[in-house]
């Protein structure tokens, strides 16, 4: 007889398991619509690979895993994808999450499956890939991808493989009936895992309140190396770390994994799913779920397709809604109230609990903590719940962490024993989430700081580069000036050289001067000619328009006027050039265009400055008014279309802001002196 160990604490709540054990597993059937959330497991949600309207077959993959810690989703029956959208899911928040909705066609047509005649022929990686592609995630309630759990690092030795058939939580019997009715599949699945992991020993752990399951498994395990170990009933011995301690006497280190002490644990439901996936090639598309509670006429266990609305399953079991105050997914200790009875069954839904009026009453109002220490005696992880409670109230996160808050398994034993009815677990859950949130915020703020500092450094560098460039230019200018000064005051030779240079330049300019002159004149003449041509065409067009009585007459008229003015200017320029031409020296001719350009720019600036205050303000006002009008139109159309409230509010705000700006601009236009 194997030695059985005990873990600290634990409680003995009323089991209430017999209600759902009266009948064998029933089939829940195919509902008309199945809703499959993309994230039914711990890790990254799967990504859809089907389109709306596409026909899918039973067992066909409809969403592929994203990343290592993720599993795919399969169609539980044949039908058509009717939507891929956000739907409410079974989550305590009541929030929506992306789901694939399948309208079933009732034909239940299978997709082709890859079976394995002999899994012993398959490589380790191939087996793991098949488990992963079958979409198997821990079915005891946590939903951690099984393939990830089974992917041991090379070199790490698995001493003990534990199949968890404990099911310690009250009311739930899904694993119990599975062990009673399908012990062969469990043992066969365990042998696949044995082949995969080569453990030193394989144990199936069961509490002693399930004698039928124990007998069935013992019979099935006859002649194999698998040992069925029975131990006294206590909550929460089904917790992974607690079960390991019961069976091996070893504790999983804080923050560590069972594999660190050479143990791997799998739920019986997951083992059956692995068996089905490897031997029959069937992906995870259904599970056994307990439906129980006083508000259920015929409580029992059902094989139910994933994605089945809870309402449909409840109806199968004779749900009396009027007797039910809240619907719980999971057990009474660790489950949560679902927001709506229409949310779908997922891979982790091991139980639907519909308590009647007298059953599981709402907790009485919490009283003050009296420091009795009963919670510390009940805690299976040997924490100090009363201390954690104080720190959680005071939000002393550092102390919470130093008191090992993250080792809490949220089993609820402390709340159950608390004579003051303090919802202790809720404090720990909230604090854990808050600590994680703070860590994430801190990471984010670190990231922002790095970006800010990088930007600051970049701006500084750019500024420094600019200053350096400016300094270099200044220095170069100084050097040139110095060189010039040195040349002026130096020996005769440099003077002579400078004079020579100047003379050479003059000669060159004189040589090119005439040519330059000619080209300038040519250009001006050409301008006059083309402008005249343009004037002629414009005039003829105008005449035509006037003859036809077109709307364009005024526009054409202004065009003609403008061209005429241009022509006059061109002619004048030509005349001036011809007059000045002979009088100009060669050097002046070269300087003239530049001087003219400068003069023009100055004139333009003066004109701009002259009309600036009034005209500019008027232009601005006009622009603002246009924008205001546009925004008003948009607001009106948004309101008419019934857009989101947020958009309408934002637009309304913009309108008021623009109105303010417009009135300010008007004010400014009235009293330009203020600006």
């Amino acid at each position: 007889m194997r030695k059985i160990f005990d873990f600290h604490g634990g409680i003995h709540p009323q089991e209430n398991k017999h209600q759902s054990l009266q009948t064998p597993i029933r089939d829940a059937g195919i509902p008309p619509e199945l809703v499959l959330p993309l994230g039914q497991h711990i890790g990254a949600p799967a990504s859809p690979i089907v389109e709306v309207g596409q026909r899918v077959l039973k067992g066909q993959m409809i969403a592929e895993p994203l990343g290592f810690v993720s599993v795919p989703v399969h169609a539980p029956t044949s039908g058509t994808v009717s939507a891929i959208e956000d739907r409410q899911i079974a989550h305590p928040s009541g929030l929506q999450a992306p789901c694939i909705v399948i309208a079933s066609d009732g034909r239940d047509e299978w997709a082709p499956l890859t079976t394995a005649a002999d899994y012993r022929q398959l490589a380790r990686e191939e087996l793991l890939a098949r488990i992963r592609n079958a979409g198997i995630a821990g079915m005891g309630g946590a939903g951690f991808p099984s393939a990830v759990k089974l992917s041991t690092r090379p070199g790490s030795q698995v001493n003990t493989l534990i199949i968890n058939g404990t099911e310690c939580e009250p009311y739930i019997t899904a694993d119990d009936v599975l062990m009673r009715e399908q012990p062969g599949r469990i043992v066969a699945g365990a042998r696949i895992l044995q082949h995969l992991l080569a453990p030193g020993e394989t144990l199936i752990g069961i509490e002693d309140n399930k004698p039928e399951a124990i007998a069935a498994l013992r019979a099935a395990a006859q002649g194999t190396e698998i040992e069925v170990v029975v131990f006294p009933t206590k909550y929460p011995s089904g917790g992974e770390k607690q079960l390991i301690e019961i069976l091996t006497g070893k504790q999983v280190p804080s923050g560590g994994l069972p594999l660190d002490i050479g143990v791997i644990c799998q739920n019986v439901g997951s083992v059956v799913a692995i068996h089905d996936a490897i031997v029959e090639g069937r992906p995870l598309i259904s599970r056994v779920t307990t439906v129980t509670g006083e508000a259920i006429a015929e409580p029992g266990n059902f094989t139910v397709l994933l994605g089945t609305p809870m309402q449909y399953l409840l109806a199968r079991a004779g749900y009396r809604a009027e007797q039910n105050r809240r619907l719980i997914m999971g057990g009474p200790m660790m489950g949560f109230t679902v927001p709506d009875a229409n949310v779908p069954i997922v891979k982790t839904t091991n139980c639907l609990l519909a308590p009647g009026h007298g059953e599981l009453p709402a907790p009485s109002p919490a009283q003050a903590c009296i420091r009795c220490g009963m919670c510390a005696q009940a805690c299976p992880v040997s924490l100090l719940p009363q201390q954690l409670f104080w720190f959680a109230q005071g939000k002393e996160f550092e102390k919470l962490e130093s008191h090992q808050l993250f080792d809490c398994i949220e089993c609820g034993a402390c709340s159950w024993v608390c004579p003051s009815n303090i919802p202790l677990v809720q404090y720990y859950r909230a604090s854990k989430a808050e600590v994680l949130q703070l860590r994430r915020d801190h990471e984010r703020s670190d990231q922002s700081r790095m970006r800010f500092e990088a930007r600051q450094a970049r701006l500084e560098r750019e500024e420094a580069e600019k200053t350096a460039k400016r300094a270099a230019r200044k220095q170069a200018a100084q050097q040139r000036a110095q060189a010039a000064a040195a040349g002026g005051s130096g020996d005769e030779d440099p003077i002579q050289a400078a004079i020579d240079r100047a003379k050479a330049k003059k000669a060159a300019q004189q040589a090119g001067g005439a040519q330059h002159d000619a080209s300038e004149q040519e250009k001006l003449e050409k301008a006059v000619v083309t402008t005249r041509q343009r004037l002629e065409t414009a005039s003829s067009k105008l005449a035509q328009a006037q003859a036809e009585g077109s709307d364009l007459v005024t526009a054409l008229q202004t065009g003609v006027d403008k061209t005429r003015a241009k022509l006059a200017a061109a002619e004048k320029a030509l005349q001036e050039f011809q007059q000045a031409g002979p009088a100009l020296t060669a050097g002046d001719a070269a300087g003239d265009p530049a001087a003219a350009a400068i003069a023009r720019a100055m004139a333009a600036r003066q004109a701009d400055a002259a009309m600036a205050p009034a005209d500019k303000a008027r232009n601005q006002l006009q622009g603002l008014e246009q924008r205001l009008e546009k925004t008003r139109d948009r607001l009106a159309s948004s309101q008419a279309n019934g857009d989101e409230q947020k958009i309408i509010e934002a637009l309304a705000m913009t309108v008021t802001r623009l109105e303010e700006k417009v009135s300010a601009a008007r004010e400014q236009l009235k009293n330009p002196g203020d600006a």
Partner: protein
Amino acid sequence: MLEFIVQYPLLSALLALVGLGAVFGAVLGFAAVQFKTEGNPIADQINALLPQTQCGQCGYPGCRPYAEAVANGEAINKCPPGGEAGIQALAALLDLEVIPLDEEHGEEKVKAVAFIREAECIGCTKCIQACPVDAILGAAKQMHTVIASECTGCDLCLEPCPVDCIDMIPQRESLQTWHWPLPDPASREPQVIATDAEAAEDRAA
């Protein structure tokens, strides 16, 4: 040695004290040079507690300058994005009293992310220049867009936008951000005794 001490007790005592002073002075002087800390370590610690939105609502151009100011005695309640929790953390670090947020500098708001209505963006790059964490992408006369994961929600891009095409969108609660709330402390106040609650339930039933 002993003779000298016996002969000149006062002088030897003086010598001993001066000698001790010289030795410790040398050790301290060496330590001051050898283990000199660069920058202001307290300002670094304060900066680590600030939310790094770089929003300037405190009146300083960024979190780092405010951290330095706080290290030099500035009030700790001028950071609205840090909120109540930030003030508490600063008070704990600096051993100061927790004071309420200075409303002159703004209120604690829901976290938001800037969003550019891209159809209206004229590509002026003004928001890009205003963004303290380089979270806006774009080029002159090209549409700009906000990198949502990097945006700190500081509002600094709103003011310079000439066409008012930037909205601050409050972050929506998702499955990733949701977590269990702390139990309502009010429910712990024994307003009704337990038997009253049961009686009320029975009546309701």
